[in-house]
């Protein structure tokens, strides 16, 4: 019995170690290869160098794409955070008929295949002449980002005791002021988590952007996708390094603003019920 238990325990342990390798292995290997001194993808590399990072950073095309990606992601974060905050506050604090259904409607993009969103947006934005413009890209990618903001903001908004707002209002504060002074500071963690998710939704998107970009107007994931279909070498691995660095910075940002993982919504959900 105990021998069987031991074997079972070892089996589970081996499985989990294999899964961790599966989860982080490919990215780790790619990041190691990005520091290779040679142009082949030998693992482990024959020598070390940061030349691929320098090459990529000085390449005008990669720089242009990175700039566009940053611009788009920043604007998408602002647009979807504002819209998402308005929607969450209205549906949770306001008396709206069918609020539950409306929240469901706002979350629909999460369960819609991204390719469908991309194709529909391409049809509309091409007809409006906005395909290949920053405005069109932000308009489209915000659909991907908005549900993440609403999910995160509404979780933290529901945790705020509304009597605090009412107390401020009974002391003479206008509703907008009570929101600004009382509610906003209390839900900043949810807003920050939503904003990081919104940023990453745009920063990582290679499907909606696929139809809305074109030659000379590419985001980083699109240029990466284009490039790796032709060849792969350490310079593309270096782009991966830069992309990971930005995403890591975004997540660390959340840790600093409010101590919590962006996935905190999920684990908090578990805590509430236990």
């Amino acid at each position, binding site marked *: 019995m105990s021998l069987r238990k031991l074997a079972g325990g070892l089996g589970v342990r081996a499985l989990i170690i294999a*899964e961790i390798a599966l989860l982080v292995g490919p990215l780790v*290997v790619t990041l190691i290869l990005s520091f290779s001194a040679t142009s082949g993808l030998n693992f482990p590399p024959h020598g070390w160098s940061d030349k691929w990072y320098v090459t990529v950073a000085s390449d005008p095309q990669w720089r242009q794409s990175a700039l566009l990606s940053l611009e788009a992601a920043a604007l998408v974060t602002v647009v979807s955070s504002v819209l998402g905050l308005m929607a969450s506050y209205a*549906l949770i604090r306001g008396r709206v008929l069918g609020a539950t259904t409306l*929240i469901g409607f706002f979350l*629909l993009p999460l369960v819609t295949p991204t*390719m469908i969103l991309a194709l529909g947006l391409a049809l509309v934005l091409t007809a409006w002449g906005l395909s290949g413009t920053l405005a069109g890209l932000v308009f489209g990618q915000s659909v991907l980002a908005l549900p993440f903001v609403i999910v995160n903001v509404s979780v933290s908004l529901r945790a705020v005791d509304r009597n605090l707002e009412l107390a401020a209002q009974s002391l003479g504060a206008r509703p907008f002021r009570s929101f600004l002074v009382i509610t906003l500071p209390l839900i900043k963690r949810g807003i920050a988590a939503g904003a990081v998710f919104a940023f990453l939704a745009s920063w990582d*998107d290679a499907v909606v952007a696929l139809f809305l970009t074109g030659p000379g107007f590419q985001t980083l994931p699109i240029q990466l996708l284009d490039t790796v279909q032709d060849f792969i070498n350490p310079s593309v691995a270096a782009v991966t390094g830069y992309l*990971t660095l930005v995403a*890591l910075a975004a997540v660390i940002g959340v840790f600093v603003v409010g101590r919590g993982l962006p996935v905190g919504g999920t684990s908090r959900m578990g805590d509430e019920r236990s």
Partner: protein
Amino acid sequence: MTASHLYEVSAGPAQTGRAPRSRSALRAIGASRIGLLCLPPLAYMAVAFGYPLGLMISDSFTDAPSSLANYRSVVSSSLYATLLWNTVRIALLVTAATLLVSYPYAYLMSRARGARMIVLSAAIVFPFLSSAVVRSFTWEVILEPNGVVDRALRDLGLSHPPVLIGNTASVVIGLTQISMPFLVLPIYAALVAVRQDYLSAAASLGANRLATFRHVTMPLSLPGVLVGCLFVLVYAMGSYVTPQLLGGNDSVMISQGIVLQVQNSLGFGVASTMGVLLILITVAGLALAAKIGGARAVFRT
């Protein structure tokens, strides 16, 4: 994860009824005005989500020689049937594979403390840091001929290692890795919510650990499993980047067909028709899952 918020959020407005009367009149005015705040986001969703979807559906009928011509050509062509079959087949394989690897992972995570917990949750969040493009590309690096795995197999003495990339298997591997967090996190949330009293009660009734798991823990985690599987299924059916980078001739999916149509300027009509088919099989998948798990279970998680 989504459905749970749906449910929890719905509890919000109901609480307003319990407030003292003197305040509620004052509040009703403010509250209805606050409700107006949802109009701009609703307008945005209507224009950026509803309208494009509607236009796609109408294009599938109108952007054609006759109203059903697109559908006729899609249905009669064996190429589209293959894309459809590939999409369903790969999505189901990915969902099964992801469930198989995610459940033990989530279970261990729900039991882990301290350093082990940090390692397990970091490993599951780590891939979140990179996009589908990056993750598929990193698999390409690993699996390509002369890549890391290929060389390792040669070093182990295989003179002709199997081709690891450009087939259904590599697409399923890539999508499974990308999908794991979608399934691990809801299962983990469901597992940590299982109350310790239930487990103690089962034990006091003489159940061993296996029996407790089979009759108490596992059934209570099923809603989490179902929600996670739905996410994975929808994600896999609509995936484009991974099959494009890791797949081959036997794994071309509907999304790739759509992109080919659009990029080769073959017109939006047929692409829209494929899009409608993709929606239909997604909805069919959701309906099937709801039937298996019970629609209420989905919305209660």
